[in-house]
């Protein structure tokens, strides 16, 4: 168990910025898949790629 940054409870509630899944601190299997990108931790490379593609798509739609 560990306390979150705001001290409320025993979890840090770290979520993937793309898909939003909760990333548990104690899961070795999940940890192996994680990727750092622009100072954020994503659950997987797929979420990094999706996030970049979304930004590109929206930028081109905006002209």
């Amino acid at each position: 168990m560990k306390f979150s940054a705001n001290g409320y409870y025993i979890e840090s509630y770290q979520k993937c910025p793309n898909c939003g899944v909760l990333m548990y601190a104690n899961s070795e299997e999940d940890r192996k898949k994680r990727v750092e990108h622009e100072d954020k931790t994503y659950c997987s490379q797929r979420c990094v790629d999706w996030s970049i593609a979304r930004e590109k798509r929206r930028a081109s739609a905006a002209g």
Partner: protein
Amino acid sequence: MDFVTMNILDSAMVSICREMGITLMKTSYSTIFNEALDFTCGLADMNGDMIAVADFCPAQIGGMPLLVQSCLKEIPISDIHEGDIILHNDPYRGGLHTPEHTFFKPIFVEGEIMGFAVAIGHIAEVGGMAPGGFCGEATEIFQEGVRIPPVKIVKRGEDNVEVWKLLLANVRTPRVNYGDLKALIAAVDLGEKQMQGIFAKYGKAKVKETVADLLLYSEKRMRAELEMIPDGIYSFDDYVESDGVESDKNHLIHVDVHKNGGSIVMDYHGTSPQAIGPINATLGVATSAAYNAVLHMTDPTIPRNSGCFRPIEVMAEPGSLLNVDFPAPSVGGNTETHPRIVGTILGAMSKALPDRVMAAEGGTHCNFVFGGVDADTKEYFACYDLEAVGWGGRSFADGNSAVDSINGNCRITPVEVYETRFPWLIESLALDTDSGGAGKHRGGLGYSKQMLCVNDVITCSQMTDRHLLAPWGLEGGKEGGCGATLVMKDGEDTWKTMREAYGKASTSRFNNVAIRRGDRVLLRMPGGGGYGDPAERDPDAVLSDLKDGYISKEAAKKYYGYKEA
């Protein structure tokens, strides 16, 4: 694949789930279970994947895999023993909202866990700031009742009394809660026992192999269905009106549906940030709503299990309306925001699948909750009352009238039961003329329920929607009628909204209004949007609607070109 055994096992497991649900219905204390059937029962494998489910509440069906898997992240399989039952309701750990209590029990066969029996039910009273669980003005989770991380409520077959004491000390109706919680336990006990019978008959290896085949079969059939939909990115917007705190602010739900071959991704990025009030959806809700929408658009004969869900992915930005961050409130997310998400996905897919979607349904469960001390029995009562709405018109048929919103599949509590259990007199309950949106295929009708308070005081709260933003039509169909909640105080002769009568920020979301003896409350449920140009409606259908009182002469003239003979 051994299709014969697979079909037999699938049917047997679904029957077990139904039997679990019937047990829960028959042994529970609350009307939300024994009348409304706001629960679901299923079976999961060791990974938390759903392998069978009964046809109860879709919100909970789609939420089940993430719920069980989240618990297993915190309680490893090695710490789960025969006879244990795990309880969980935490919205931030795969949960749906605080009232939704998940129970699951390991199925041990010859000392080995082979899977879990799961029951999820909406507990009517959970403590917190308002009786009945829906605090329409909550601004943090702590006002929404007891929050339960995964804990063992039963350990090796014995009640974990310390947990029971904590739970029951924090709710207003401990006797009723005890009965409902025990009913949920009875359901998982039965599921465990019946599945042990299945393992005894077929053997562990055969069941394991066949269940894996079954999930693969559902996945393949779902992918085949998705492959028939044209590839593309389909987008749509809808809004949740007000959050009970910031008046007149609408909250955007945006979806980009990426359909590519046999896969589909619901990308919700672009949705509003999470609200201050309790309309936020958890990731479990956002995921369940995506599954629900896809199941509504695809072949209903595909066996319902986690295999169906494998081709579906969800992208829900943390801190948004569709992936609430701690400690923001979320009680309305599972009931009001879920159907709005489904409607948004159906709206997006109307361009690709016009014959498999409908115009907007009423999209609310009304969620009129109340509690108080009964003047006769002196016992505290609390009720979570859900009501039905009109559904949207379709390309081939009118919308259904007075059916529970798309994520509920629940029943309306009969008036006689309602009056027997709670101190209200129901003065009228009738379909509302003209509440179904006009269209070639008319939207289903909503209805109104007028109630007289016959107790000294009843503390009432509500979490509903569609008072201001009407259910939309499709392909030229018109909007359905809005809902309303009105009060007429004893001795007065005018109906007022909760904003007019009690100064609440919202007419549709509020809590702890004291309704006194002689006061009346009128709940009006929205209708569904129409589908197609009303001018194309079959004239015989217009006449039939007139005869039944579904539409007025004025509406018939205005929308359908009706002329009096």
